[in-house]
């Protein structure tokens, strides 16, 4: 896909009186950040509330094995095998949890250990692992117009699914017993959310980086928890913090020549520190 449809965006942003706005790759990266950061911030509220932070971390790390499967199958890009493997993993973890026996974090830890090691073993065979380090820290400035289009579609679908299942997820986060008595098939809501989360994390990590993707889910939501008194405020603050730290992090990374994903996370952590000062826990 060529970038003709992005012309109005490029023209508008390049009117800004900043050096970074004059570069085409920065304008594309800005658009990608505007799509990804609020999406991760919004989903993050449920990740925190439903205690799925370790799950999303595991799914991100499992990308190693996804990439490795793509290499073995001789596929041109790693995205589809990564997404496919992430979904498979989500089903596996859900099944293990449902079967009982292992506690949730032990089950996830076990699966994560297996997938990360397997991926690294396959990718490092022949001493070639350095080729894949890009995935560790992400490459936000390498976003192409077709990537942006893909992210836009992903954001729309993921946001729609999230909003449809939101109330059921909220009940699940409060009490499984209550959710079972008040919601239609709460288990389905949890599974759909876990799959959505797996796909969003996997599709975002080539740009954000495997090592820091989870922070973009957790930190804005953690900051929002310090400020919010109800669900709507929680959601709005989390998206707001993710949005602002995404833009600030991108621009700072441009001038400081640092990895964009990690810089965005630091901006979000700074926002978290600020929210501590205004925490409702201090004000009662």
């Amino acid at each position, binding site marked *: 896909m060529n970038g003709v449809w992005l012309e109005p965006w490029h023209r508008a942003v390049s009117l800004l009186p900043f050096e970074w706005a004059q570069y085409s790759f920065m304008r594309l990266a800005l658009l990608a950040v505007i799509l990804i950061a609020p999406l991760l911030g*919004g989903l993050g*509220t449920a990740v925190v*509330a439903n205690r799925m932070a370790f799950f999303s971390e595991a799914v991100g790390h499992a990308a190693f094995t996804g990439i490795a499967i793509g290499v073995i199958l001789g596929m041109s890009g790693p995205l589809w095998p990564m997404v496919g493997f992430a979904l498979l993993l989500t089903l596996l973890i859900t099944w293990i949890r449902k079967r009982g026996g292992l506690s949730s974090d032990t089950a996830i830890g076990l699966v994560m250990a297996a997938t990360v090691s397997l991926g690294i073993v396959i990718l490092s065979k022949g001493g070639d692992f350095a080729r894949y380090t890009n995935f560790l820290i992400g490459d936000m400035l390498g976003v192409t117009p077709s990537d942006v289009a893909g992210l836009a579609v992903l954001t729309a679908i993921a946001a729609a699914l999230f*909003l*449809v299942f*939101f*109330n*059921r997820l*909220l*009940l699940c*986060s*409060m*009490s499984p*017993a*209550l959710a*079972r*008595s*008040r*919601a239609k098939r709460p288990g389905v809501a949890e599974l759909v959310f876990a799959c959505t989360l797996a796909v969003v994390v996997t599709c975002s990590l080539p740009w954000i980086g495997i090592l820091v993707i989870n922070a973009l889910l957790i930190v804005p939501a953690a900051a*929002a*928890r310090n400020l*919010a*008194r*109800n*669900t*709507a*405020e*929680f*959601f709005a603050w989390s998206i707001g913090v993710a949005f602002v730290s995404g833009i600030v992090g991108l621009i700072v990374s441009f001038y400081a020549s640092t990895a964009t994903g990690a810089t965005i996370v630091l901006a979000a952590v700074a926002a978290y520190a600020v929210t501590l000062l205004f925490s409702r*826990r201090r004000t009662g």
Partner: protein
Amino acid sequence: METAFDSAPAHHGIAPHRCGECCTTLRGVGASYGGEPVLEDVNLHLHCGELTAIIGENGAGKTTLVRCLLGETPHSGEIHFSDAARRRKDSPIIGYVPQRVSFDREAPVSVLDLFAASLEARRPACLGVSLSVRGRTIEGLRRTDASHLLKRRLGTLSGGEMQRVLLALALTPVPNILILDEPVSGVDHSGRKKFYDLLSRLRRQYDLAVLLVSHDLASLARFADRLVFLNRRVVCEGPPAEVLRDSRVREAFGLESIT
């Protein structure tokens, strides 16, 4: 298999406020967990306007029985509900107050959010609450004198306040059967009395069939219409005074010293 419980109409006249027509019937209900039978051949009738309390030792199958009624646990036998016109309904509205809900105290969830997540048909609670649901929430909270708690975070509620909120939620919409699982554990003595007073009032007001699982024998003796002593099957049942005299109940609850 017809049992003694089918003589239920004989109870008419004891409690003039209830219609006595709607009824939840359990017939030969059994359930097992991992091959081990937890419930066997349970036969019960739950009438509207009547407060039935299930008592029994830990592991006697009380919670399993509740889960069977809620449709969460597969069971053998038959559970059906018929309304005042003797029409059978497969899915009665069940209000449920769960046992000791352990909310995350720091979670930014208000009482209104809890109701919105349960009552909103479409609108996600993160995008605000519709006026109609807000209205139903206030109406529901008024039933349990809790409307002032509307905007409070769940984590800031006391045990008694939480019980009133959960009871209000279970009564929205007004159910055919209200089930409470250990509703007063963690609530102090005066809070318990208030809770049972409230429950008795609501039962009369809405002609509710109430099923209560509890260990609080002293309160049950006062507030329950009927006690059911469960130990995998129904060991004995009847008016509290009668059941509490039964030697098996006295032994199970260590009541020998009390006369």
